[in-house]
């Protein structure tokens, strides 16, 4: 199938640099997700791979072949767009067969392929309808079907689920995961939704301001973020970041609270990160920090407590299950799991320690 390699890829519009300098290899059959906030360049990067944008410099290779100067169709990739981009004047069948007709495939072959894909995606009943007469989920399936019939070497998805409502989004997410298993194709998927990224990806590429911040498996990014940006972008609710100073094996918070670590840390620590589930609520006198519960959110499976700590931002605490006895206004102690702290330097980079 397809190994996609990006070598020193840069893209700028006039003087404005959109993609700084990207080096990336996407393995055959891998499900790779580009994730980042708006304006991070993730969609541009996907369009560069698709051939819909020209690179300013650098090379794009598919299976070792340089495709940098080839048009979108010659790269043999398929793309699913955010707005579905179905052809409104054509029926579902015509939408799916258009690309094959352009490629001048025999009629019988086109019908065979379209029918097969329609069966996979359960679209048989809608083949003669126009897109206007379809629901959002059906349109999305047609868009995916149109991509599959071309039997591309890889699939590109540009925020395909962001136009769907929450329930449908979860459903389609699972559909796409199944599709990946079934087709075993290389897929590149762009999203700003880190939950989609975490659940679907074999490998996540986190982008910010046109630069790759980190590449890794979902769990790698979660457990070992390379910098503050990744740490805060991956994970929901966000990682708590507290302003702190290190002095030997002691970390002092701006609020005055102290942590005694088992080993000395570098002195350039500026911030300390801790995930909501790595904090537990304890009695006031037992905690590393002391605060007041401001809001309690009970989701049934989890309980989130937002605790205001003097001179620090509100700290989010996640407790598994529905825990009784926590109320707003209550004074509590916060106990941090010392084995799961993340330390960041002034420039936001993670300080590797053996705490």
């Amino acid at each position, binding site marked *: 199938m397809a190994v996609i390699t990006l070598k020193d890829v840069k893209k700028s519009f006039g003087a404005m640099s959109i993609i700084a300098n990207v080096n990336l290899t996407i393995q055959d059959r891998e499900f790779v997700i580009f994730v980042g906030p708006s304006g991070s360049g993730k969609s541009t990067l996907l*369009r560069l791979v*698709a*051939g*819909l944008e020209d690179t300013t410099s650098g090379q794009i290779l598919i299976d070792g072949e340089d495709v940098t100067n080839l*048009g*979108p*169709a010659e790269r043999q*990739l*398929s*793309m699913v*767009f*955010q*707005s*579905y*981009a*179905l*052809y*409104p*004047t054509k029926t579902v069948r015509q939408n799916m067969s*258009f*690309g094959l007709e*352009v*490629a001048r495939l025999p009629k019988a072959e086109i019908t065979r392929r379209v029918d097969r894909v329609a069966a996979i995606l359960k679209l048989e009943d809608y083949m003669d309808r126009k*897109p*206007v007469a379809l629901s959002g989920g059906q349109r999305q399936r047609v868009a995916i079907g*149109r991509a599959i019939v*071309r039997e591309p070497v890889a699939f590109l998805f540009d925020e395909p689920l962001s136009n769907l409502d929450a329930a449908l989004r979860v459903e389609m997410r699972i559909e796409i995961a199944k599709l990946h298993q079934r087709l075993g194709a290389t897929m590149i998927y762009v999203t700003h939704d880190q939950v989609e990224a975490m659940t679907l990806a074999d490998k996540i590429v986190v982008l910010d301001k046109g630069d790759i911040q980190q590449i890794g498996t979902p769990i790698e990014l979660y457990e070992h973020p390379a910098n503050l940006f990744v740490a805060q972008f991956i994970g929901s609710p966000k990682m708590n970041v507290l302003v702190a100073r290190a002095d030997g094996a002691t970390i002092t918070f701006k609020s005055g609270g102290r942590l005694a670590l088992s080993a000395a840390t570098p002195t350039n620590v500026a911030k300390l990160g801790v995930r909501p589930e790595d904090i537990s609520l304890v009695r006031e006198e037992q905690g590393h920090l002391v605060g007041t519960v401001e809001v309690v959110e009970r989701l049934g499976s989890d309980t989130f407590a937002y605790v205001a700590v003097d001179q620090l931002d509100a700290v989010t605490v996640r407790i598994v299950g529905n825990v009784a006895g926590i109320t707003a206004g209550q004074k509590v102690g916060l106990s941090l799991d010392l084995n799961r702290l993340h330390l960041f330097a002034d420039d936001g980079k993670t300080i590797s320690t053996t705490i």
Partner: protein
Amino acid sequence: MAIAGKSQLSGKFRRNRMLLTAVLAVYFIYTFIPIFYVITAATKTNQDLFNTFGLWFSDDFHLWQNLSELFTIQDGIFLRWLGNTFYYATVSALGAAIFATLAGYAFAKYDFTGKKFLFALVLGAVMIPQTALVIPIFLLLSEVGLLNTAWAVILPSLVFPPGVFLMRAYVDEAISNEIIDAGRMDGAGEFHIFSRLAFRMLMPGFTTVLILAFVANWNNYFLPLVVLNSPEYFPVTVGLANWYATAVGGTGGVLLYTVVMTGALVSILPVIVAFLIMQRFWQGGLGAGGVKA
């Protein structure tokens, strides 16, 4: 439909509505009186035309005789003029609408050097009345030897700047970049995308430009007057004006005002029919952007 805060019963709403109706009524009368005059005049004898009240029919209903005379006088040349007008207007309007759609699509969807300047030229051209261009066009056509041919009327009419302006705005609204990108991913070339995917989506805009260009060309008088001199190439507008001049001059005494009036009536009918037929495309156009593809 009532708008919150402005109920249909409120005094202000009713006053506004009455005012609006009054303004429209005045406008209607203003536009309809000349048409009505033409209708009544076409049903009269030449004598009645001057001796009876202009805005009502006379006792002698003479329309059929007038029509018969209109189509037989001078070996039935009026029919030929009608045919010429139809031919010039149809070919010019189709060509103008196609060029306007192509240009509008290019302005809306492609980035190219000089785009702003070229579009400014188009906008500028909208402001220039065609009358001002007729003399240079005459000189150009004379240079290439196309005077007194159908091309002399059709070629200049293929340029329709208001159509380009309209189509650019319409393409912007009606066709998302993602649809064009989807076509590219499907392997279609740019012209293929335009002709097979985009054009159908642009039908309402295309029809609008087609009607506007058709009407403009149907009514075109000055250009054919200048570039044509054989009566067999005349469109209705120029032919009728010639007849009218003859009638006013009183030379020959064959041509009557009523024939000119009947000719005028017959010449506006196709435009009205074209409007009625095209109306459904037009209305379709206004609502087309409402559904997300």
